[in-house]
């Protein structure tokens, strides 16, 4: 789960990380009055679950309350990577002497949380990593003991030479590690971590991603979810326990299992169509999920054909068939439907479908070809 910058900053602040004050505005007028209160030049920052906000025009300086108002009005009209901006964070602008990067992520290769630090922070940090890898420090932490002071100091010496800066940064790294591990993070990041001309170190930005599997046991973190910042169809899918990602193709796909779902989308493309979505109904066989899946897909007017690809293992294909039949009974389809199913209780499933005038195929390639032909009004490649 993604959380907003202002929410991540709140968590980081609770662990003692120095962060400039800031307030959230949802209207230009609020941005204006917050700026007046700060009485100084501010930065207005789009709060949206996407990277590259600055490059998309979502982060701007404002010298006066009136300017903050007009800039907030512009930013609140933006859509960044498909997501409309609905909130901005207004925060006093800082004087920056240097910019560093610090982050913590769970690393697949070492199977541990890894601290990443670079003295060359800022928006082009990925380029830094690619072109000058010696400017990046990576340190795997033993999660049974946490980030020890000597480890934090080693990383901090990589960033700074002034011992005062080093000690301050080491403390921040330990605080960041605790914020990460005690809140179920899969990523915690400060970019940039800046030194000010006054010699202080402060976090000007904050990012945190929470492992979805942690949310059940952390209701306070789960409550940070901002449903209004997500794609409505993705929200609806999650509430029905489906994994759904909207794309912009013509063949709607309903599949069980993420790997098979991706392979099905790949085949749609291979045969000349475009997948309209990724949708995984998961391993359980609740007909309600199928009903929800069909509802979400049919809301997309770009979809010209719907393809079911179900390989029954834990999923019982008769449950899927029942879901299809019920969903169509409630809300007849306006586009053609191609059903491929095989595996657990296949004979019963086929019987259910045939009783309702539907049919099922058993071969994946044939089913995809047929769906593509129906969606494009022509022949599959």
């Amino acid at each position, binding site marked *: 789960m*993604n959380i907003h910058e202002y929410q991540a900053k709140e968590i980081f602040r609770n662990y003692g990380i120095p962060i400039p004050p800031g307030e959230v505005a949802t209207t230009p007028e609020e941005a204006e009055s917050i700026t007046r209160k700060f009485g100084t030049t501010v930065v207005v920052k789009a709060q949206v*679950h*996407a*990277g590259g906000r600055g490059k998309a025009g979502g982060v701007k300086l404002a010298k006066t309350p009136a300017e903050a108002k007009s800039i907030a009005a512009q930013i609140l009209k933006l859509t960044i*990577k*498909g*997501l409309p901006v609905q909130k901005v964070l207004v925060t006093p602008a800082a004087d920056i002497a240097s910019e560093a990067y610090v*982050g*913590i*992520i*769970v*690393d*697949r*290769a070492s*199977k*541990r*949380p*890894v601290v*990443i630090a670079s003295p060359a922070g800022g928006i082009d*940090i*990925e380029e830094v*990593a690619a072109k000058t*890898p010696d400017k*990046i420090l*990576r340190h795997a932490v033993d*999660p049974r003991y946490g980030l020890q002071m000597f480890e934090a100091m080693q990383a901090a010496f990589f960033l700074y030479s002034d011992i005062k800066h080093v000690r301050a940064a080491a403390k921040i790294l330990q605080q960041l590690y605790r914020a990460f*591990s005690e809140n*179920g993070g*899969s*990523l915690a*990041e400060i970019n940039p971590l800046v030194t000010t001309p006054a010699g202080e170190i402060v976090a000007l930005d904050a*990012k945190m*991603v929470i492992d979805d*599997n*942690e949310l*059940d*046991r952390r209701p306070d973190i789960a409550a940070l979810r901002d449903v209004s910042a997500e794609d409505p169809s993705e929200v609806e899918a999650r509430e029905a326990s489906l994994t759904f990602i909207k*794309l912009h193709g013509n063949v709607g796909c309903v599949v*069980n*299992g*993420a*790997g*098979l779902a*991706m*392979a099905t989308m*790949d*085949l749609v*493309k*291979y045969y000349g169509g475009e*997948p309209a979505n*990724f949708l995984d109904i998961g*391993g359980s066989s609740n007909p309600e999920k199928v009903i929800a899946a069909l509802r979400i897909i049919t809301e997309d007017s770009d979809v010209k054909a719907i393809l079911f690809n179900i*390989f*029954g*293992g*834990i999923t019982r294909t008769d449950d899927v068939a029942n879901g299809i039949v019920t969903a169509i009974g409630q809300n007849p389809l306006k586009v053609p439907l191609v059903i491929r199913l095989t*595996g*657990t209780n296949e004979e019963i499933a086929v019987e259910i479908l045939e009783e309702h005038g539907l049919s099922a195929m058993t071969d*994946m*390639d044939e089913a995809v070809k047929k769906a593509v032909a129906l969606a494009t009004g022509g022949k599959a490649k």
Partner: protein
Amino acid sequence: MSTFIDKSTRLLVQGITGRDGSFHTNQMIEYGTQVVAGVTPGKGGQKFEGTVPIFNTVAEAVTKTGANTTVIYVPPPFAADAMMEAADAGISFIVCITEGVPVLDMTRVYPFVKDRGSRLLGPNCPGLISPGQSKVGIIPGQICVPGPVGLVSRSGTLTYEVVYQMTRAKIGQTTCVGIGGDPINGTSFIDCLDAFEKDPETEAVVMIGEIGGTDEQEAARFVREKMKKPVVGFIAGQTAPPGRRMGHAGAIISGSAGTAAEKMQAFEDNGVGVAKRPIDVVDLLKRAMR
């Protein structure tokens, strides 16, 4: 021969009385797996289906039945503890089916299990099957037939799809292993490739990957450097869109975006046959084994 499990495997089921645990225990028994014990705390002394003894703890089950392998179906909040309990009781092969284990839990489970010398498969995996001998987990037995091909996959249902297409083409399997799709898992592609290379019955290997991470690229290098047997690969997610990813750490740490194109190129560069569609796996295998 087969890999990791065979006819002599003595299986314990953790969470044997749960909905999934009981259903799949029956399926495994029906397939011929020797299920020697179950564990459900508080139900010690009872019997599953009147035949399999249930114990309160794994340690007790191991002492009384000589179980050497376990399969875990307990819910996510208890899965980390179940894996560590099994390792601590001396179980040498631990298969965790449970989906939804927090990744930070796994950062602690993995070293715990490793320190005790056990092998972990999963979590969030379908388990494994050696057709005609034993199955541990949830892979449907009826789609597999014994034969000369070893299969390793990050996926669940996509594995079934490929196995099904192989079986329809009369290409059987020595062992099919699902390693699971979680960021931290106990057994890697390379572990399985190594086991297949050493297994005298396995003549060729299928590797099914997905987008994300660099495991497939590393596995491809292992194939070139350490393997003589032919390997065929498929990557799911060729059409997956670049996500609205936040943060930079992922790309910094792996130095890679983990795209399907990148992985397929790594296959190509290292002599792994590249299947563009699942069905192409069958043709590539036929050519490789001719």
